[in-house]
Structures are given as structure tokens and as C-alpha cells.
């Protein structure tokens, strides 16, 4: 790969990570807006998704400046675990899997109607879309940047 090609690959990779960082930032600030400004109480599954979304907003930013191609290696597993939680949550929300009968207690149900914004946007679906977008973008970036890496590594050896 020529030097010019490599610069181009790096630029494309950078933008892919940049956009996935934007998605992570939007999701982070959005979920903080729901809980801290609108006063919605995050249900248990929401908390797990937040646990795997918030660090992405930080790790991806650090991977952008300077561009660190290995950031995909660290961010992808986090996003993948987040995706599992959000998949489970979406299935639960749409009643495709039943919520175990539990005695009522303080806190809110993860299949609650209160999770729909402006009557049309269910929060679990927003979360699902965000994790899928981040994973697709990072996988693309990973392929681009790591193909690059293998070649440089091979030439060094």
C-alpha cells in the first residue's frame, strides 16, 4: 500500500470512529437527559445498557486523538455486550419474551409504557439502533485499519 493510500485509509477509518463516537455521545447525553432532566427512572436493564454505553463515549474519543487503530479492539466487546442487553430489552418490551412474574416493588418495569417518547419512540428501540450503528461502524473501521496494520507488521518482520 502506498503512503497516499494509507493516509486515505486512515482518514476513512477516523471518520467511521468519529461517527460512532457521535452516536455514543448522543446516546449518553440522551439517556442522561431522560433521567436527570425529565426525571424518568432508569429500569434495571436500562442501567446495564448505560454501563456499556457511557464508556464508549470516552474510549472512542481517546481513540480519535491521535488516531489509534486499536481502539476498535477495546470498544467492540463493550458495544457487543451492550447489544445483548438491548436485544433482550427490546424483545421484552414488545412482549416477544414474557417478563417473569415478580412481586411488585418500588422501581419501574422494563416493559413499561413510560418508556415511549412522544408516543412513538420507544427508548429500548433507540438503544438498539445506537448499539447496532456503533458496532457496524466500528467493524468497518476495524477491517480497514487492521488490514493496514497487518501489512505494516509484516513488513517490519
Amino acid at each position: 500500500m502506498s503512503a497516499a493510500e494509507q493516509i486515505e485509509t486512515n482518514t476513512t477509518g477516523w471518520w467511521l470512529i468519529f461517527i460512532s463516537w457521535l452516536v455514543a455521545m448522543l446516546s449518553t447525553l440522551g439517556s442522561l437527559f431522560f433521567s436527570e432532566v425529565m426525571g424518568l427512572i432508569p429500569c434495571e436493564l436500562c442501567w446495564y445498557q448505560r454501563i456499556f454505553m457511557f464508556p464508549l463515549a470516552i474510549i472512542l474519543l481517546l481513540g480519535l486523538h491521535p488516531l489509534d487503530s486499536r481502539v476498535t479492539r477495546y470498544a467492540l466487546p463493550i458495544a457487543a455486550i451492550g447489544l445483548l442487553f438491548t436485544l433482550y430489552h427490546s424483545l421484552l418490551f414488545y412482549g416477544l419474551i414474557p417478563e417473569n412474574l415478580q412481586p411488585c416493588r418500588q422501581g419501574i418495569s422494563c416493559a413499561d409504557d413510560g418508556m415511549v417518547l412522544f408516543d412513538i419512540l420507544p427508548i429500548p428501540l433507540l438503544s438498539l439502533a445506537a448499539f447496532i450503528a456503533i458496532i457496524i461502524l466500528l467493524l468497518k473501521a476495524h477491517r480497514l485499519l487492521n488490514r493496514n496494520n497487518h501489512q505494516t507488521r509484516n513488513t517490519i518482520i
Partner: protein
Amino acid sequence: MKQSHFTLIALFLLVLAFIVAALFHDAGEKQAQEKRAADNSSALIKDYSVKAGNPSAKVTIVEFLDPACETCARFHPFVKQLMQQYSGKVNLVVRYLPLHQGSDQMVAMLEGARKQNKFWEVLELMFETQSQWTINHVAQPDIFWSFIDRAGVDTARIQQDMDGSAIMNIIQQDLADGKLLGTDKTPTFFVNGKPLPSFGFEQLQTLVESEVSAHYK
């Protein structure tokens, strides 16, 4: 444009959007809350509610409280102090919002004590000993039973009185009125029907002061 500029601009815009949206939301929420309180003014005070202070005072504080709520316990001395400071000009109405599990039993105990004119003694004892009878935010009335003697009440009579359906009706009505007024946290205060602009002791003090100076010139 350098890539780092993109990141800085994006970061700035995102944070700015968050702050602006939060300010908009708060302003709208404040208006909605004021409107709810004005539209449902009849839900603020009930004849059966516990009252303190001069009945003909021109400033009335309505407090929605939960005996098991920590912030209510910490606010109580301030409210008492306000009542003393504006003695004769301000009175207090207590409404129940037992949001903690087991807290309705504590409210029933209070209503039982009220029949012996010991409401305030028992409420203060509950607040003082709260950390001992609330475990993980769940009220444990059984534990409080071992303290209630200190308030000088007839415990056998309280036990008898607190089972009545009248007390449960009071709690249900208070919860329903709280819902009408958009009250979902404790303590929530209304001064002459006006909600606090934001939560805090200073905000309560300022609102009481302005109402007192408006009605007593």
C-alpha cells in the same frame, strides 16, 4: 479544517444542545406544575388533614410528606423554624405521600397517635429514629413499635385505632390528590397554592417570605 476541530465543535454543540434542551424542559415543567396546582386547588387541603399553627393565618404551607423519607426528616426542623419565625402568620397542613414500602403503616400509626393528640410527638420521634427503622428504604413498623413508648402514647389504643378503614381512606385520598397535583416526590411544598420554583430550603423560605410580606403589610 483539522480533524480535532471537528471533534471540538461536535463536543461543544452536543453539550450546548443538552443545556438548552434542559433549560427549555425545566421552564415548561415549571409552568405545567403551576397550572396543575392552580387547576386542582381543591385537592390541596382537606378537612381531615392535620393542621398546625394559627387557623386564620393568611399564609398556608401544604407539605406532602412520608415518615420514611430521609429528606422529610431533615427538612422538618427547618419547617418548624419557619413556623416559629412567622408565628401567627403562617400555618401548616400535612398531607401523606407514603411512597416507601411499609410507610402506610407508619402513617396509620400517626393517625392513631393523632386521636390521642400526640401526632407531632410521634412524627418527631419517627424522624429522629428513622435511620433505625428504615432498612434499605423499606419502613419496618415493627421496629418502631419498640420506640413509640418514648412519645408517651397509649400503644394499645393506637394498635386498635390504626386498623380502621377510615385511615386507609385518608391515605388513598392523599395519594390521589398528590397525583392530581403532579406530586411524585417527598417532601413537596405548596405555599398558598404555589409550588416551589425548585426544590430547596432557601426556595421555601423565599416563597414564604414573599407571601407573608404580600399579605401582611
